[in-house]
C-alpha cells in the first residue's frame, strides 16, 4: 500500500485529502463526522469579521440531466459567533491530534485585527492558519477577501502583518479572479507565507430563470455575482495551480494545497501531478457527503501502487516538467485520428464534427468501399435491418487529418478513435527555433508559403 502521509510545510496529515473551508467545515459536529469518515484534514469555515447571510444562497449549473456540475454561492464567511467557532476548533483538535486542523480567517484589513485573530486561532491548538484572500462577493465590497487577493501589495502587506505574529504555519488562499495569479502568489511568498492554496471561487452569474426572469439564485427579487466552484472549474484550477507551481519564485519555496472541482481520486491525482502537496474538496462533498473520501483514499493509493509510487513525494509535481510555452512545442510532431471499425457504433458524430467544424477529412464509406454522403439512403427503406446493415462506416483520410483531436473528443465509445503518432518526415523544430533562423516566416505570408513548400507542409 502506498503511503499517503502528507507533510505540508510544518503540517502533517494521514492523507492529502482536506475539506476546503466552506459549509462542510462549519461546526465541530460536522468535522468530527468527516474525520470519522477518513478525511486527512479540514480547513475550518472562514472565521473573522461579523456577518449576516441571505437566502437563497446557492445557485447551480446543471447540464443535460446531470446535476450540479458546479455550484455558485453568495455565502459569506461563518455567521456563527466567533467564540463558539474557536471553542469548537479547540475541541476538534484535542479529539483528533493526527489530523490537520487549519483555521481560515478573514478580518478587517488592519494590523490589529489580524494580530488579534491570529492569537485567538493559535490558542485553539490548530495546526495552521489559512488567510482567505479569495471570497469574491460581500466580503470584497468590505475591503476583504478578493479585494485583498487581487492587489499584490495588499496581499503582501497583510501577510506580513500575520507573519509578525504567527508561530504556526500560515497558508495564503488565492483568488482566481485575477489576470495573472503569479503576482499575488509571489507577494505572499515574499511576505513569508509558509504555503499557498488555490483556487477560491470564480466570479459568476449562474443563470436566469426563464419562467420568472429572475436571476439564479433569487434573493428576494435581486441577484448578483457569486462564487463558482465544482467539477466544471477543474481545468481552470489545474491551470492556475500549474502556473503557480512552476513559477521560479514559488517552486520549492512553499507547498501548495490545490482545489477546485475535485470529485474523485482521479481529479486529485491530477492536482498532485501538477504540483499540489495536499488537495481540498468542497462542492463534491456538498453534493454527496463526507463518504466520498473512501473513493479518494482507496482510489489514489491503488493507482499509486499500480504506478509504483511509494510516497506522495514521488507524485507531487511529476507532470510539471512538461509544461512549456507554445513556442517550444515541436511543430513537426504529427498525429492522425484512426477509427477502430470494430468498436465504432456509427453514430457519425465524428463525421459531423470534422466536416462541419474541423478539416473535412472523415469520409463515410459503404460496404463496397465507395465514399457516400450522409442520408444517401432511399426514402422508401426502413426498419432496423435496412437502417443498420447498409450504414456506412466513417474513415479518416489520414493524409488530410491535421490531428486536431476533435473527433477523438466527441466519440462516445471508449478507445474507438485513437490519435496515432505518425512520422511527419520533417526534423523537429519549434516556433522559437524557426523564427530565430528564418524571422521572415513569422512576419510575411509569402515567406511562410515558401517555408511550407520547402519542408512539405500542405494545409488545404
Amino acid at each position, binding site marked *: 500500500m502506498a503511503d499517503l502521509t502528507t507533510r505540508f510545510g510544518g503540517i502533517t496529515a494521514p492523507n492529502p485529502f482536506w475539506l476546503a473551508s466552506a459549509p462542510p467545515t462549519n461546526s465541530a459536529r460536522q468535522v468530527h463526522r468527516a474525520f470519522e469518515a477518513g478525511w486527512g484534514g479540514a480547513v475550518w469555515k472562514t472565521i473573522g469579521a461579523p456577518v449576516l447571510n441571505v437566502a437563497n444562497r446557492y445557485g447551480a449549473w446543471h447540464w443535460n440531466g446531470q446535476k450540479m456540475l458546479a455550484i455558485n454561492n453568495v455565502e459569506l464567511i461563518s455567521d456563527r459567533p466567533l467564540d463558539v467557532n474557536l471553542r469548537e476548533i479547540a475541541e476538534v483538535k484535542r479529539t483528533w491530534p493526527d489530523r490537520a486542523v487549519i483555521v481560515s480567517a478573514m478580518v478587517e484589513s488592519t494590523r490589529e485585527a489580524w494580530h488579534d485573530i491570529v492569537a485567538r486561532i493559535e490558542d485553539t491548538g490548530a495546526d495552521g492558519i489559512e488567510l482567505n484572500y479569495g471570497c469574491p462577493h460581500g466580503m470584497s465590497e468590505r475591503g476583504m477577501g478578493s479585494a485583498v487577493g487581487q492587489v499584490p501589495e495588499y496581499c503582501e502587506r497583510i501577510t506580513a502583518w500575520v507573519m509578525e505574529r504567527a508561530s504556526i504555519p500560515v497558508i495564503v488562499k488565492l483568488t482566481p479572479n485575477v489576470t495573472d495569479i503569479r503576482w499575488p502568489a509571489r507577494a505572499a511568498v515574499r511576505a513569508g507565507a509558509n504555503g499557498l492554496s488555490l483556487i477560491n471561487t470564480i466570479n459568476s452569474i449562474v443563470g436566469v430563470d426563464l419562467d420568472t426572469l429572475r436571476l439564479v439564485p433569487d434573493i428576494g427579487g435581486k441577484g448578483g455575482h457569486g462564487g463558482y466552484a465544482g467539477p466544471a472549474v477543474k481545468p481552470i484550477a489545474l491551470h492556475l495551480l500549474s502556473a503557480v507551481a512552476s513559477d521560479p519564485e514559488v517552486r520549492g519555496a512553499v507547498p501548495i494545497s490545490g482545489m477546485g472541482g475535485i470529485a474523485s481520486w482521479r481529479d486529485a491525482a491530477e492536482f498532485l501531478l501538477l504540483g499540489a502537496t495536499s488537495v481540498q474538496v468542497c462542492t463534491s462533498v456538498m453534493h454527496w457527503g463526507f463518504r466520498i473520501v473512501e473513493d479518494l483514499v482507496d482510489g489514489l493509493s491503488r493507482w499509486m501502487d499500480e504506478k509504483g509510487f511509494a510516497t506522495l513525494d514521488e507524485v507531487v509535481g511529476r507532470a510539471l516538467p512538461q509544461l512549456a510555452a507554445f513556442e517550444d512545442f515541436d511543430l513537426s510532431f504529427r498525429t492522425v485520428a484512426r477509427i477502430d471499425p470494430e468498436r465504432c457504433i456509427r453514430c457519425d458524430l465524428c463525421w459531423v464534427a470534422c466536416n462541419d467544424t474541423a478539416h473535412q477529412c472523415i469520409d463515410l464509406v459503404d460496404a463496397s468501399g465507395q465514399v457516400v454522403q450522409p*442520408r444517401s*439512403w432511399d426514402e422508401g427503406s426502413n*426498419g432496423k435491418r435496412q437502417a443498420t446493415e447498409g450504414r456506412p462506416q466513417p474513415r479518416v483520410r489520414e493524409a488530410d487529418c491535421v490531428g486536431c483531436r476533435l473527433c477523438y473528443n466527441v466519440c462516445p465509445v471508449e478507445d474507438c478513435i485513437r490519435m496515432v503518432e505518425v512520422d511527419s518526415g520533417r526534423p523537429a523544430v519549434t516556433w522559437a527555433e524557426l523564427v530565430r533562423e528564418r524571422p521572415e516566416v513569422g512576419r510575411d505570408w509569402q515567406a511562410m508559403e515558401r517555408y511550407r513548400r520547402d519542408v512539405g507542409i500542405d494545409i488545404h
Partner: protein
Amino acid sequence: MNEIEARLSSSPASLAEQLPPFSDSQALHEAARCLYCYDAPCTHACPTHIDVATFIRRIATGDPLGAAKTILEANILGHSCARVCPVEELCVGACVLHAEGKPIAIGRLQRFATDHLYARGVSLFRPGPPSGRRVAVVGAGPAGLSCAAELAKLGHAVTVFEKRELAGGLSTYGIIGLREPVAVALAEVEMIRRLGVAIVTGRSLGEDLALEELRRDFEAVFLAIGLGGMPRLGIPGEDSVVDGLSWIERSKLDPASLRVGKEVVVIGAGNTAIDAATVAVRLGAERVTIVYRRSRREMPAYDHEYGFARLEGIDFRFLTQPVRVLVDNGTVRGLACVRMRLGRADASGRARPEPVPGSEFVLPCDQVIAAIGQNKVGWLERLGIATENGFVRVDEEWRTSLPGVWAGGDCIRARGAASTVMAVEDGKRAARAIHRALCATSAAAE
C-alpha cells in the same frame, strides 16, 4: 358527455393503457442519454423518417412542444405511433446504443412529447393557401388521415369518406386499449379536422358511395380502406365462434357488452390473436389458450408480443389445427383439434403444416374466439381497380390502375408487416404524389 364518451368511461381499469407516461425527469434523463447521432439510424429505420435525434434533443433542452412539432411534421399520427409502433423492429431496433444493450426508449419519449402537445390542445399546423383543388379520401384510418392532413397542409380541399361511425380506422376500432386508448386516436382525428379536412362518416364505398361519383366530383381519389372483416374458418360449429376483430372492437368501445368465458380458446397466432387473448385474460378468463397450426417459429407475432402474452399467462398450443367446435344446446363445450407436423415450405416460404392421422383430441372450453386475419380487397376489381393477390396494385407513385385514383395503407400492403406507421407513410407520400399530379395538370392547363 356523448354516448361514446359514456361507453368509454365504463371501461375497466384492466383494459386501460398499460405503460405509464414518462415523468418529466424520466424523460429528461432518457433524452440526455441519446447521443444525438448524425444521420441517425433510428431516423432511417422509422418508416416516416422522424428526425428522432432532433426531437429527443428538444425534449432534453426543455422544449417538448418543439419536439412534438419535429415528430408530427414527419408523422402526423405520431401520437398513435408512439404507442403502437413495433419499435424494436424499427427505430429502437436501429439505435446505436444497442451496442451497449441499452437503446433509447424512443417510443416513450415520442409519447412524452405528443402527450404534452395534446394535453395543451395546441394546433401546430395550418392549412396551406387554398389551391382550389378537391381531393376525396376513402377510409379514415391512418393511411387516409395522413394523406388528408398532408394534402390540407398543401392547400387542397379534402373530404374523407368513412364507412364507420367513428374515424381512426384500426387505431379506433382495432388496437387494444392497453396499447392505445380510443381517446388518443380520436384526438388525432380532431386535430386533422382542425386542419380543415371534412370527415364524413357513415358512407361506404361500393354501397352508398360510388367511385364514379367521387371521380366526377373530385380531382383525385385516395383509397385507404384497409382490409376487411375476418375470413370464415370453414369448420362445423363456426356460428358459435366469436369474431376476434369485433371482440377487440367491443373491448375498446363497449366493454360492458363483453361476456368472457372461463376457459377460452383463441384460434390464430398473429397480433390480433394475442390481443384478443389478452382481452380475455384481462376480463377474468381463468384459462386462455392460443392454438396455431404451425410452430412458434412461423408465428407472425413479434417476439416481444409473444413474450408479453406469456407474461399475461396465455398458453400456446402449437401445431394444432381446429376441426370442429363442439356445441351443446347453443353452449360451447370444446374445440376438437388435430395435431400437425411441418412439411415442406409453401409459397410463403414457411413450412406447410400437415395433419397427423388419428391425432384428433378435444380442448375443453366454453368460448372460442377466432382471429385469423382480415379479408383482402379483391372486390375492388368490380370497381375497375386492378388487384394482385387480393391487394390493390399501385405503382411507385401510389397510382392504381384507374386514372385519378391512388391507394395506400393496408389495402396495398401485399408484402411486409402491415402497421400504423407504414400506413401513415403511405398516406404522406401518396399525398405528395397526388400534389405533384395536380400541379402537373394545372401547369398543363396554363
